[in-house]
């Protein structure tokens, strides 16, 4: 499955909230090959910013040949990206990284913040399995995800730090009840590091195989520069988040 770097045309770059947008790019070759958990590394402008930016593939439309990337405006690169318009071009390098392991029957998907994005694509490909989604955010304004999971999950549970939507608290607080009520054979989690640690710890205690998706600063995105390595808990060599990950079994890296 060769990786490619191609100029792609922006089909749409639409606002979801004040600081979150969804970018749809036409990249049929990448759309065809991509699996959930993979990302693209995009070069936003010709000159500055210099480096590419990694963004998870939040969904693909193989027929239309498009990728959806949902991103939060946090710095220079994403701010510039937010200004681009339909028909502008960005260079996409992808599909990168490995994907989630789909050999499960009754998965629980746990997303926190922007980590909820790649789980949409995952939920889609897990179909027709019975899928439960648990998602957390700081407040109601951050919980715009629900419509995107329409028809993809049996049930959706929401927690917010401030209680403005769903249950007040962190996602991990909602786990005991969910696990009691369902026979999960897999937990997939993507979100802030502390959240993934907490969920992975819970999963381990309950002996549910758990996969996490890590985020690291990346230069090459293809395993050459070693910007992104993390400690491999199961061996002596480090793991590269860009090629060995971003999806890992929790016990490998947490």
């Amino acid at each position, binding site marked *: 499955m*060769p*990786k*490619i*770097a191609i100029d792609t045309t922006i089909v749409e770059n639409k606002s979801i909230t004040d600081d979150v947008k969804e970018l749809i790019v036409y990249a049929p070759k990448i759309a065809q090959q991509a699996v959930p958990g993979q990302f693209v590394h995009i*070069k936003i402008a010709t*000159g*500055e*910013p*210099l*480096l*590419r930016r990694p963004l998870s593939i939040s969904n693909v439309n193989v027929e239309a040949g498009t990728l959806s990337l949902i991103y939060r405006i946090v710095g220079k690169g994403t701010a510039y990206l937010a200004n681009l318009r339909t028909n502008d071009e960005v260079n996409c*390098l992808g599909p990168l990284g490995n994907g989630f392991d789909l050999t499960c029957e009754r998965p629980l998907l746990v997303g926190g913040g922007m980590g909820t994005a790649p789980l949409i694509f995952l939920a889609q490909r897990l179909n027709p399995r019975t899928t439960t989604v648990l998602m957390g955010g700081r407040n109601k304004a951050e919980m715009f995800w629900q419509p995107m999971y329409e028809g993809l999950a049996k049930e959706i549970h929401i927690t917010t730090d401030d209680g403005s939507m769903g249950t007040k608290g962190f996602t991990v607080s909602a786990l005991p009840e969910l696990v009691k009520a369902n026979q999960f054979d897999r937990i997939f989690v993507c979100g802030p590091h502390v959240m993934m640690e907490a969920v992975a710890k819970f999963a381990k205690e309950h002996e549910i195989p758990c996969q996490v998706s890590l985020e690291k*600063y*990346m*230069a*090459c*995105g*293809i*395993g*050459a*520069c*070693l*910007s*992104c*390595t993390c*400690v491999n808990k199961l061996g*002596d*060599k*480090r793991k590269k988040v860009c*090629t060995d990950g971003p999806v890992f079994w929790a016990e490998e890296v947490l």
Partner: protein
Amino acid sequence: MLSSETMLEIDIAGIKMKNPIMTGSGTFGFGEEYSDFVDLNKIGAVVVKGTTLLPRCGNDGVRIAETPSGMLNCIGLENPGVEHFLSDILPRLKKYDVPIIVNVSGNTVEEYGQLAKILDVYGIAAVELNVSCPNVKEGGIVFGTNRDSAAAVVREVKRNTSKPVIIKLSPNVTDIADMAVAVEEAGADAISMINTLIGMVIDVDTWKPVLGNITGGLSGPAVKPVAVRMVWQVAQVVKIPIIGMGGIMTAEDAIEFFLAGASAVAIGTANFVNPSAVEDVAKGIQEYLVKKKLTHVSQLIGQLKVNK
């Protein structure tokens, strides 16, 4: 008029290359990582990731930071060690028809010698000495910023290998020409330059350094003017060939280095931005030669017109 096949062919210190476009150590992995984007049989030489005697896991924390037109890195020489390189990686690389140059780092002068000896095997075209890493024996001084230490490393390595020895100069010195003369006298077969400039970025929100290692090496277009200047200064004082690098993104950037006196160039940071940069630059140089009605890339080397 030479054919387009031969107009880029070049010999650097006995290393025969199809074109003078090499890769910067640490920016191209072991070459294989780029095989989806670059035909490794079509590039000048692959300079592999900095290699040490023992495996190293590199620095903790954040390892790169973007800066205006550049980037800082503090990978910290993560590598599987020379033995693993020879047993597991080199055999795979041998199937490509491209010179493999191994960039090595030692903690002591002797270690450089040992590394060179271990690497004096079939399938390796040359060794490149990375003398910009802090070491213990010299009390924190970096070999690359002291003329005598750098010369000592070169002499020790020359005694231990039959391969051409390239030494990579650090730009963090007062007098780069003096360093170059010292390593040439010590027997270096070629000089590569520049390694990264030391820099630092601070997170004004957390008041912490962005990089896990506090400081890191600056590379990319931001440093190109410094690199070109240094290549030009060194070309005035040494006879051995220079491999120029530092911020090359395009064929035009590379041509600046040739005119300044480099006999070959290496592409580093640009690989991260454009994974086919090495081939694109080679193609661009060929086009430039045709446009300028030149028959060989060597017609550019050191041709800067200076009338002062």
